[in-house]
């Protein structure tokens, strides 16, 4: 009886010790030198693995920073604090990037910009865009099928009344929605700038008024109102140059369609 227990313990214990020794030796033999800075950088990164920096994930980015192929200020999501911490670890001066947010340049919801036809296919904007130019009368507007909301790693986009809204407090400015939108109506703008033209239509004024109640008609009222020359009408739509914009809000007041919105 005792002998059987001893034998079992001995065999299992022996195997355990043997494997332990083998693993111990292996960890020495197969030791791979890893730069400890990779781990340190990884700790200060947000680890959302959004890919906004252009790398496969936070660890891939951390390795690239240590190798010197990526800039320490590549992480937009982490903001200034993260950039300066990464720069500290790498021992270089931080060049901070301005915090940005995504904004949807369309305000034509299902009441103001009616649909051309009822779309009941695959719930994806890319698929919808292939059918007769999309289910909206306006050739430039948001479909509201939420492809941007699906790709958002931060859950920052919500859909209501058939258009997308960005919840700015949650937005990490990774740019995934910008590249996903088949209509290219989402834009990354500096978070400090409060005004955005919520229309992307290149159509002429008369056509815009037919398909949407809140489309830009290119009347140039905003252009004349802006004291800094920051807003211009190109391709029949108003466009704000954020390097010149001072958040004065005069354009928003003058706009007859009320589509230069304060965020």
């Amino acid at each position, binding site marked *: 009886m005792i002998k059987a227990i001893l*034998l*079992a313990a001995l*065999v*299992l214990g022996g*195997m*355990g010790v043997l*494997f*332990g020794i*083998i*693993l111990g030796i*292996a*960890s020495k*033999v*197969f*030791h*791979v030198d890893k730069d400890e800075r990779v781990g340190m950088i990884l700790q200060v990164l947000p680890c959302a693995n959004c890919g906004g920096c252009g790398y496969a994930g936070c660890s891939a980015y951390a390795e690239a920073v240590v190798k010197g192929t990526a800039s320490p200020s590549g992480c937009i999501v982490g903001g200034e604090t993260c950039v300066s911490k990464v720069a500290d670890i790498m021992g270089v001066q931080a060049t901070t990037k301005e915090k940005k947010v995504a904004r949807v340049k369309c305000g034509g919801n299902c009441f103001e910009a009616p649909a051309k036809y009822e779309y009941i296919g*695959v*719930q*994806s904007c890319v*698929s919808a865009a292939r059918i007769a130019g999309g289910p909206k009368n306006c050739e430039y507007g948001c479909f509201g099928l939420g492809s941007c909301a699906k790709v958002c790693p931060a859950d920052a986009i919500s859909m209501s009344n058939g258009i997308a809204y960005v919840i700015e407090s949650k937005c990490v400015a990774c740019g995934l929605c910008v590249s996903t939108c088949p209509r290219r109506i989402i834009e990354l703008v500096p978070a400090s700038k409060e005004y955005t033209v919520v229309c992307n239509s290149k159509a002429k004024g008369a056509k815009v008024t037919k398909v949407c109640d809140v489309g830009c008609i290119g009347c140039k009222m905003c252009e004349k109102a802006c004291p800094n020359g920051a807003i211009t009408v190109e391709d029949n739509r108003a466009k704000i140059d954020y390097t010149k914009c001072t958040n004065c809000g005069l354009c928003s007041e003058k706009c007859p369609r009320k589509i230069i919105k304060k965020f």
Partner: protein
Amino acid sequence: MMGNLFVIAITAILMENFVLSKFLGICPFLGVSKKLKTALGMGAAVTFVIVLSAIVTWCVQRFLLVPLKLEYLQTIAFILIIASLVQFVEMALMKLVPPLYESLGIYLPLITTNCAVLGSAILIQDNNYTFIEGVVYAFASSIGFMLAMVMFAGVRERLEDSDIPEFLKGFPITLISASLLSLAFFGFQGLKF
């Protein structure tokens, strides 16, 4: 001899598919089957580990446990072997074949306590397979595992684009699809050699 091995292989892949008939390895089957690429990676890692562990556990069983009449230690001994083996393989791959480590590396720790690996090692003993038969069985059953993973990844990629009722979204629809796939595989039960 060859015919026998063929029967073992086909049985392990289709009729007694690990995931869909024996319900082993359900965790990685549901966890890593969201994308075709990860499903393939996981399948390859499992194949690698199952074959290696089949070789080692077969030797330990025949040359250590059976002669000492310690067959009742089979389960715990096999778990010990598989866990250390996976650790060892992970370290060796990291040093010797970095590209392979890059593609399999993240899945290896997941396999340490995978029931499909332990299951195949124990089933080989239960069926009294010879060494060659055991290796073929291990390889074929892991190919079956990979087949199920890849097929299901395809199903799930389609599910992503489908208009699923709110209350079925996520795991419910995944489990329902898995059970339908499993039912389909029961058709292979009719194949009798």
